[in-house]
Structures are given as structure tokens and as C-alpha cells.
């Protein structure tokens, strides 16, 4: 299961290239020509990184509590 997923993920960029220059051009233009779009992506990634970092810390706290309960029983 993991292997197939990995293969698909690795093949994904190939699939986009296989569709010819047209798509690649369009995507390239989408990012380049229309100026400063990369900031928007950087901003979205930062915000999600922050929220996910908080979720991970909460998860660790929760695991510690779970361990405590199982040790008590």
C-alpha cells in the first residue's frame, strides 16, 4: 500500500510533463507572469505549519496522559 502510494506520488510530476509543454507553460505562467503569487503560497504554508505544530504538541500531551492512565490501571 505504502509502495503504490509512493510510486504514484513519484510519477505525478511525470504525468504533468507528459501532457506537453502547453500545461507546463500555463502553470509556469500562472506562477511567474501573474506576479507575487508565491507570497500567497508561502503565507498559507506558514499558517498551516503553525497550526499543525500546535496540534502535534497537543497530541504529544495527550499521549503522555494516555500513558499515565494505563500505568495507573
Amino acid at each position, binding site marked *: 500500500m505504502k509502495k503504490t502510494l509512493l510510486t504514484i506520488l513519484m510519477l505525478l510530476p511525470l504525468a504533468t510533463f507528459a501532457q506537453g509543454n502547453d500545461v507546463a507553460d500555463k502553470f509556469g505562467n500562472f506562477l511567474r507572469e501573474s506576479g*507575487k503569487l508565491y*507570497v*500567497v503560497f508561502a503565507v498559507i504554508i506558514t*499558517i498551516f505549519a503553525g497550526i499543525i505544530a500546535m496540534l502535534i504538541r497537543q497530541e504529544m500531551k495527550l499521549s503522555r*496522559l494516555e500513558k499515565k*492512565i494505563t500505568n495507573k490501571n
Partner: protein
Amino acid sequence: MRKYWWKILSIICLGVALTAGVLTPLSPGISNITPESVTSDSTYTINFYCQNAHLLSNQNSLQCFLSADSGKTMLCGKNILVKSDHQLTANFYFNHNIFSGNTKIKYLDAAINNDMDGTFAEFSAIKAVRDTTKNDVLAPAKCGVVIKNTDPQFFSFPYRDILIESIRNLYFHVPMWFAMIIILLVSAIYSIRYLYTFKIDNDIVASECAKVGLLFGLCGITTGSMWAKTTWGAYWNNDPKESAAAVGLLMYFGYLVLRSSIADHDKRARVAAVTNIFFYAIFIPLIFVLPRLTDSLHPGNGGNPGFNSYDLDNHMRVIFYPAIIGWTLLGVWLVSIRYRIRKLQNKIESA
């Protein structure tokens, strides 16, 4: 199901903000014009480079013109040649009539109009210099331009010179601060409630709200500095708004340090509640009032118009309000998870 409605609402709102905020096209705009400078009494071929325009498919209704003195002077492009959706060339004859009186230099606005894209322009795009050696050529400086649509005929965000695509950050950077202020307000309210009731639950809510609010503030300040890099030129500009926000966040860091430095539960809760209320009362004037009293790069401060006056048009609002609701509810969600874990922790430790 009924219990989860606000979580579902939060997901829907964030989905709307993310998809529409990223995928909605910008309005058409002129990004570059060459040549930038012309001499009068001669014909030039002017190149227009546009963004997000649909020039090829709307050639029938295409008009291209230069204007000055708010439309009193107008030059129409002849032999308009559309090279692609984003590029066209047109010939302009610059006569002496565009200069009023003895002016030697005149700046002309360039504009393109078609049925689908409406009218889009670059102001002061071309500098016309008067050729003083030839003086008496009199040709009409007025041409007939019939404009049917001034607005684009598709759902789009406004095209602004320096912002360009980064205008979409309105759905990610700005709601961070809205959510932070709302969550910190909840925190302050629970601190007041604690001082009335002395129930430890209120103190837990207040402290967890402060932590989530601080997370949003940190996200807001980092994304703000990224946005500042592309629009203001540097990551940190010592702008009053930036500095005030940094001071405010440090205050809340101080609040958390204060909490962890007092071991006794009741004493900690009482001291923290009082500080929290005071910090919120300082925080609001610090980031909303003080930066407005001086010049600032940030929209909505100093002599600088806010987003709502011209950048936040109705198309942007449609997605802006759901974005605020979505991010705020996500914050409330985080608070509720943190609160439940803290309650569990207290129960286990006291047992």
C-alpha cells in the same frame, strides 16, 4: 451532529476562503508599456503588456487610448494589433494639442477597453515631451471612445500595482489578526469571569485562549513580514504597526511566563486574570489606535487609506467575511481541544 455545526461551518468557510481566494482571477491590468517617453508631433508604435486580459477573444470591441486631464485630452490607437491575450501594439500620433499653454511635459494615462475585461488603465504611463522646434501643427486631440463596460464581466479581485496577486493574502494574513483579537477578547472575558466566580475552569479557558491567540498573532506577524518583503521591500521595516504588534505579542509572552512562574494554582489564576485584563486593555490601543496617529506603510494607518476604502471591493468582501468566520472558528476549535486536554490533565493529576 448538532453539536458540531460550528466546526462544519469553520471547514466550509475555510474551504471557500482557500479555493476562491487562490483561484479567483485578478481583474485585467496593464503591467508594462513601451516606449515610456515620446516626443510630440510624431507617430509611435506603443506596446501594451497586460495581465489577466482576454484581448484575443474580444477584438471586435477592443479600444485602446491615451488620455490626460481626466479625459479632456484623448488619443486613440490606430492599427491595433493583438499579438496575444496579454499583448497588443497600437499606433499613436502625438500632436501638440495635448500640451495646454506652455507646458513642456505631459503625462498620459494609458487605457484599454473591451466588452469582457471592461476598462483597465495604467496612470501616467507615457511621458510626452513637447518638441519646441516644430510648433504650429494643429490636429484634433479628441477622439471618440464609446465605453460600454468599465468593470470586468467576470468575478475577479482588483488589480493593484504593487500588490498584484499578493492581494489574496487578505484571506490569510488579515483574518489571523481578526481571529487573534476575538480569541484574546474571549480570554479577557473569561479572566473577568474568573475574578467574579473564582472557578478554575474560567482560568483554564482564559489561558488556553491566550495561547491560541498568541499562535495566531505569531502567524500574523510572520506572514505580515513575508508580505512586507514583496510590497514594502524588507522583512522588517520598523513600521509603527509592526512594532506595536511585536510589543503586543511580547506582552502576551510575558503573560505566559508570569503564569508558569507561580506555583500556587489559586494565586496564579488570580494574578494572571488581572494581568490578562490589563494586557488586553493595552493591546487594543497599541495596535489599533497608536499606529493611526502617525505615518505608516500599513493600510488603514496614518495618511494611508485602508483596504476597505478602495482595495476591498465587493468581490473581495464576499470571500473576506467567510474567511474571518472560518479562521476564528478554527481558533475556537483549537481552544476547545486544548481546554479538554487540560481538564483531563487536572483530573488525572488530582486523582
